């Protein structure tokens, strides 16, 4: 069934209080670190102080002998694992690399790489034991910068890494894991047709997802090998699959319980601590809890890739783009797997360009392995392309929004990476920006306005859900995707809409891996789309059953029963004349009409609708300090259908804010020895409340016909445009083009000092 007609909806589109809200405002919700178990030990992780070193030996004897220490582990406690690609996380993951990332084997590859772990009866004893572990390192030359890592004479991280995607296969290992390319049309023809060209280079720094909750888990392994994992992650099924593989146990022997998750943004789509706690628990026979501190989070997890972006655009005199070329170099961290693929694909997705050539490199260096971060890969390449679009617009004296308007991809446009678009709302976001009241605000001196657009695929995938009708006519909805930003509310709303009962009578839960069918993790902006589809179908199956029960009570055919507003009605006069039966009445009689009423649905959801966004940002630049103040921000997005509009706005506002942090302040700073110098929130500065204005989230509802309610994913694309929107606004304010992120006060101040600002463009 389809519920695309918004005017017929009673629940979807309203803004009820989330079902898990009260426990979160009174401090009762249980996050990863809140779990305790009887007899629990405390685990701590020893981390490498070197960026790159060979481990000659590890002596754990003194640590193990410390009173209170119950287990010490190293890589020797894990089975060696062959190279094998896995697809349970967000993007491909090599099991061997994941194991090696969780605990170093033979070599440490970055400052903060885990080397050993201990479990003891108190955190203080565990900490003391770490100091007693003696690791003999042979320090090796290291490389941090992506372009340095690509050089022929760079220190090589992996002896068995040969660049994929080049012909012939290289004879020597290098740090370049992969070269990928996308082509459309014929780029040489494009350059011949171009009347105006522009070529620029941009760089971005790695940034951390910055979830406020550090990674945490409690793991208990019994003598029979049965294992319970309680942890904060973006997917309990992902945790189960990875732990089973890394420890060499059967999946059926692991039960993974989803704790409440204190933010993830992609950074909790893989595991760090769970396998260590599992090995410690197995060795000690006791439950083991490990909680990272903030320094460990910065040194050992995430971040998003840093990158070099080289863009070349060619246009006709009227502004129509005819050629676009892109070269991307993405940092993967210590193991292959940067999101350079999506970076390539998203860069020009907004535009209809006949001739396109894109090349991307995935490059390893001595940094922590990158993890997904909100639209992984897209913010980097889009910063380059959307800055370059602005430079082109100003060079040609065309309004930047108009330049986007005349080049916008529409239904039927073929993207450079293959698909032909349908039901897309990109042009609508540009037109909504042109009509937005934001543009009528006058700018003062040192103030400027920038615009930028963005694209993200959004995904579907495997989801399971159950809908149980309780004896009193209430409903329980069971799903398998951690609720990271209010998705329980959306699930309950969709079920309530289908069942025709009030939202308050539906209770949603996120179940553990033994209590609901397999569900892919919370990521890719997929939950409202895919799990929402499963929930809707489960509720629809329940409605079919409810009609059958009513038919039985009335002794008529189920086809002769209608379901409306939570009640069964005879379908027309021929069906007979009966008083309507409410869901509650049918539920009360369920025992006598065939037993409990419930349905479970498992799907592999296809047809996710892409996310499109156009943002407008106003800034004021303090010419003395180089500080940029965000004055006004409007984010316009094609959201498909906003199931719970407040949480859709929240995704947009949160993504924008992370993008502003990425633009202005956030970066990893390494010293010459490859040690991270700013592993804390004091020196790694994320935006705070006083840095920001209100963020105006404008939701355009262009429904996705492949979802029963028209939902598209909403969580990721909001982080794509902000970096360029801010940079373009800074240019507008100062005449200075900042091509290297972050545009932090010292950097902007230096640029201001170096250049006398040119006069403003006539069009501005």
């Amino acid at each position, binding site marked *: 069934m389809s519920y695309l007609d918004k005017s017929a909806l009673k629940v979807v589109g309203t803004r009820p209080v989330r079902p898990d809200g009260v426990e979160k405002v009174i401090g009762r919700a249980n996050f990863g670190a809140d779990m305790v178990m009887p007899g629990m030990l405390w685990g701590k992780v020893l981390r490498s102080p070197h960026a790159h070193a060979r481990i000659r030996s590890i002596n754990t004897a003194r640590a193990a002998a410390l009173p209170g220490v119950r287990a010490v582990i190293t890589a020797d406690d894990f089975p060696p694992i062959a190279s094998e690609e896995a697809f349970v996380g967000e993007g491909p993951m090599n099991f061997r690399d994941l194991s090696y990332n969780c605990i170093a084997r033979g070599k440490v590859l970055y400052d903060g790489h885990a080397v050993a772990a201990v479990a003891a009866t108190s955190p203080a004893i565990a900490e003391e034991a770490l100091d007693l572990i003696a690791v003999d390192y042979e320090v090796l030359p290291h490389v941090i910068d992506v372009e340095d890592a690509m050089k022929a004479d760079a220190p090589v991280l992996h002896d068995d890494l040969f660049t994929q995607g080049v012909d012939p296969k290289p004879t020597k290992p290098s740090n370049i894991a992969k070269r990928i390319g996308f082509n459309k049309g014929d780029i040489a023809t494009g350059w011949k047709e171009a009347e105006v060209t522009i070529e620029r280079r941009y760089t971005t720094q790695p940034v951390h997802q910055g979830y406020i909750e550090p990674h945490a888990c409690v793991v208990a392994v019994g003598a029979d090998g049965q294992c319970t994992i309680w942890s904060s992650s973006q997917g309990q099924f992902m945790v189960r699959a990875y732990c089973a593989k890394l420890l060499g146990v059967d999946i059926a022997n692991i039960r993974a319980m989803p704790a409440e998750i*204190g933010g993830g943004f992609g950074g909790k789509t893989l595991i760090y601590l769970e396998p260590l706690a599992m090995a410690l628990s197995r060795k000690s026979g006791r439950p083991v809890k490990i909680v990272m501190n903030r320094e460990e989070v910065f040194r050992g997890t995430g971040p998003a890739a840093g990158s070099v972006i080289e863009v070349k655009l060619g246009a006709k005199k009227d502004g129509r783009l005819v050629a676009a070329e892109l070269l991307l170099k993405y940092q993967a961290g210590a193991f292959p797997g940067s999101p350079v693929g999506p970076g390539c694909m998203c860069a020009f997705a907004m535009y209809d360009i006949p001739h396109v050539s894109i090349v991307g490199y995935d490059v390893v260096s001595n940094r922590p392995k990158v993890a997904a971060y909100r639209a992984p890969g897209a913010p980097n390449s889009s910063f380059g392309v959307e800055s370059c679009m602005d430079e082109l617009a100003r060079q040609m004296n065309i309004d930047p929004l108009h330049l986007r308007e005349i080049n916008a991809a529409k239904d039927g446009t073929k993207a450079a990476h293959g698909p032909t678009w349908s039901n897309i709302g990109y042009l609508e976001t540009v037109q909504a920006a042109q009509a937005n009241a934001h543009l009528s605000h006058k700018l003062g001196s040192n103030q400027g306005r920038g615009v930028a657009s963005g694209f993200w695929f959004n995904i579907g995938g495997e989801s399971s859900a159950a809908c149980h009708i309780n004896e009193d006519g209430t409903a329980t909805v069971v799903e398998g995707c951690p609720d990271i930003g209010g998705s329980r509310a959306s699930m309950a709303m969709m079920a309530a809409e289908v069942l025709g009962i009030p939202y308050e009578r539906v209770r949603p839960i996120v179940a553990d891996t033994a209590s609901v069918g397999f569900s892919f993790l919370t990521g890719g902006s997929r939950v409202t789309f895919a799990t929402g589809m499963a929930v809707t179908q489960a509720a629809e199956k329940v409605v079919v059953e409810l009609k059958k029960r009513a038919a039985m009570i009335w002794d008529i055919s189920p086809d002769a029963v209608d379901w409306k507003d939570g009640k069964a009605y005879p379908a027309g006069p021929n069906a007979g004349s009966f008083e309507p039966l409410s869901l509650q009445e049918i539920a009360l009689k369920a025992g006598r009409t065939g037993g409990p009423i419930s349905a479970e649905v498992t799907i592999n959801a296809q047809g996710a609708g892409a996310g499109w966004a156009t943002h407008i940002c106003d800034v004021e630049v303090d010419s003395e300090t180089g500080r940029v103040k965000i004055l006004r921000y409007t984010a316009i997005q094609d959201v498909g259908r906003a199931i719970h509009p407040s949480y859709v706005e*929240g995704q947009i506002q949160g993504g924008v804010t992370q993008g502003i942090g990425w633009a202005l302040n956030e970066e990893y700073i390494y010293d010459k020895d490859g040690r991270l110098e700013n592993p804390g929130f004091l020196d790694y500065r994320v935006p705070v409340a006083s840095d920001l204005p209100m963020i105006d989230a404008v939701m355009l509802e262009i429904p996705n016909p492949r979802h029963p309610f028209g939902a598209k994913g909403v969580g990721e694309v909001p982080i794509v445009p902000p970096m360029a929107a801010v940079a373009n606004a800074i240019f507008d304010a100062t005449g200075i083009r900042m091509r290297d992120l972050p545009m932090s006060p010292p950097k902007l101040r230096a640029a201001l000092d170096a250049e006398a600002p040119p006069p403003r463009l006539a069009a501005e």
Partner: protein
Amino acid sequence: MSKHHVTTTINGEPVEYLCEAQQTMLDVLRDELNLTGSKEGCGSGDCGACTVIVDGNIVCSCLMLGVEAEGKTITTVEGIAEGDKLHPVQQKFLEHAALQCGFCTPGFIVAAKALLDENKNPTEEETRYWLAGNLCRCTGYDKIIRAVLDAAALMRGEAGAV
């Protein structure tokens, strides 16, 4: 290590506990007293997730020692509601969807309550600066600020200010 005996008042109740000299108030709350509503986001005073009210002032409990609670009066997030009656700040956080993951929420609730105890009619800017020590990575602060301003209006007896 011998432990220290501490007598204090937490959420209106007399409390006694033993703690080690180096244990933070946050550790004591979470690990000794099972008050896990206060969260640890950094342990260094930079995120505000551990915010509590000590004798009327907001304090990062990760920067306070457990032994320093002697003779003090402490309010944690668990003590903000009165029984099952939510504080207006809590109510408005729910109505405005001012939480996504909810991990920063306890710290914001405590800090915002302290703000409204002190200032019945804060401006948006005052609210933003007061809460600048509390990090939220999910919401972009927009709905948090609206919720606090709306709670202030509710407490002043005005309806629907934001």
